[in-house]
């Protein structure tokens, strides 16, 4: 090892200690609790599968996460596609605007959506006054509101991931397609989209993993009516104190996400996204 490498290694030590102390160790604790609380054995896991309430929570979580991911990735692709076509100066402004939500707390964003979406909120008022609707629409405290909030939260991440990927696509390949006679729609479906698959897949994976663990946004915009796993866990741990069930559910979710990542990594587009470069 050279001196430089020794130094570089030394610099990673604090982060490693923190990660092990605050992350790996608690995970093992969770794992242990799931087998030991309230009494040793597989009881918690067995009870998970027989429990209708938990089944509903898991189903809600999956439906909301999948819808959020699909909508986020499609919308983010549109925005990212527009951004990479912009001249340099305008692109900088656009990226800046994309990042603005990062500075606003999740709570503030969730409550802003409530003011916009509730029955006598901004959107319903405008629509009623414009005569588009006669009755206010139920836009929040339901799955729709939760998905709106979550998509809004995930968009900047997905946009940045996609801009990085789309920006890397060699413009000469696009020009080549046009020079060969491909009309714009063909260029998009036959060239842009296949070449952006690594970016799309990593944005999808990132969004779905993030969505599965959402707590604050669904709690506020769903108002208890759209119960997702994270909120359910938080209730079990802080209110009903059923630690055994909560830790077992967490463990299952961790395993599920692990399997998801492992499965996704088998896909060539995903391996390319992670720098294998061999799509």
């Amino acid at each position, binding site marked *: 090892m050279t001196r430089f490498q020794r130094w570089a290694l030394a610099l990673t030590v604090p982060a490693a200690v923190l990660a092990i102390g605050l992350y790996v160790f608690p995970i093992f604790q969770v794992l242990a609790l799931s087998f030991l609380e309230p009494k040793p054995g597989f009881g918690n896991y067995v009870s998970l599968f027989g429990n209708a309430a938990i089944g509903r929570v898991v189903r809600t979580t999956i439906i909301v996460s999948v819808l959020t991911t699909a909508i986020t990735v499609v919308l983010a692709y549109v925005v990212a596609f527009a951004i990479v076509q912009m001249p340099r100066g305008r692109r900088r402004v656009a990226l800046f605007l994309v990042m603005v939500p990062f500075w606003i707390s999740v709570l503030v964003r969730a409550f802003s959506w409530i003011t916009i979406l509730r029955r006598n909120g901004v959107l319903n008022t405008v629509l009623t006054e414009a005569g588009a609707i006669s009755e206010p629409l139920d836009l929040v405290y339901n799955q729709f509101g939760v998905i709106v909030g979550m998509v809004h939260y995930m968009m900047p991440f997905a946009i940045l991931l996609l801009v990085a990927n789309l920006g890397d696509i*060699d413009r*000469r*390949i696009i*020009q*080549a*397609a*046009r*020079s*060969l*006679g*491909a*009309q*714009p729609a*063909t*260029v998009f479906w*036959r*060239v842009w989209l*296949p*070449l952006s698959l690594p970016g799309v897949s990593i944005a999808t994976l990132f969004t779905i993993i993030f969505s599965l663990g959402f707590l604050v946004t669904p709690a506020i915009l769903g108002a208890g009516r759209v119960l997702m796993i994270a909120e359910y866990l938080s209730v079990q741990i802080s209110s009903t104190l059923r630690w055994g069930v909560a830790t077992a559910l967490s463990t299952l979710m961790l395993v599920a996400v692990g399997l998801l990542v492992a499965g996704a990594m088998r896909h060539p587009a995903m391996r390319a996204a992670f720098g294998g470069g061999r*799509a």
Partner: protein
Amino acid sequence: MAFLDIRRLRKSYGAAVALGGVDLSVEEGEFITLLGPSGSGKTTLLMSIAGFIKPDEGGIVLAGTDVTDLEPEDRNFGLVFQGYALFPHLSVRDNVAFPLKVRKWEKRAIAERVEAMLALVGLDQLAARKPRELSGGQQQRVALARALAYSPRLLLLDEPLSALDRSLRETMQRELKRLHRETGVTFIFVTHDQEEAYAMSDRIAVFQNGRIVQIGAPRDIYRNPASRFVAGFIGGNNLIRARFSPETGTLSLLGREIAAPQHFDVALHHRDGDVSAWIRSEDIAIGGAEAGFESFDVTVIDRAFIGTGERIAVRTGDDEELALVIPDGAADAVVVGAPLQCRVRPDLIGFLLPD
């Protein structure tokens, strides 16, 4: 009217003029090369022809049709990029089939044409490979096959060989000439390598600062460069300064005073006595005066083996540096730092118009 007519094409980027009013006529089936130093506007012209750059002024007419405002995808020209720009996600076969699928050819016709094109460029064995599994020369061939598959009337090539090593380059040059002959397609080829331009072209257009400063057959350009710039850019030329004395009708050059040769035009070739002249390296020989030659004394400053012979750099009495190329073995008596006698035929000295 010519097959392709380019009229007063102008393009500026802010204050930078990329094309300063280019006129160019190309005949059907011609192989024309755009030659010029880096930044002289060759790519800009090619991309304007292809439709990717919208000129500020001027027009492009192909076979009597104004194509200036057509989108690139509607022009039906072939285009080969410097970096090949193959579709990385498609196999060789699908790369070549792309323009045909886009044109909604029938499946069978596509398969047949792809086979024929791959055979034409000698890649039939590699049809199933992805571009990244090919060597540079093979990728180049795929790019050519793809650009020629739909029988475009015009093929535009932007330095297609510059990334290849020398021997592969020569093979590909022959290949390109063969493709040109066999397809009859009009080729517009960009390079900044003059030997490549000589070897391949029917005509060469020499670019300088966004303008075509000379256009003609390779031999014409080599024998009669139109300006100091062209004479200097065409390799193998020594540019020298001379003085003309009207009273005696003599030229002083290379540290000598010689009678002005026949082709020296007193009215044209000098300004207040200053004359720009050039001598090709291979026209200077080592040795004393002989009938028809003028000799002059020089000091040797360098000698370099170049394979086919030696290139010798010398300094003349009037402090000009010259390069001469002599056959291998003829330079045994040449010693760096020592004096040497050289000779040249005055009728091979070229004179430039004052610029």
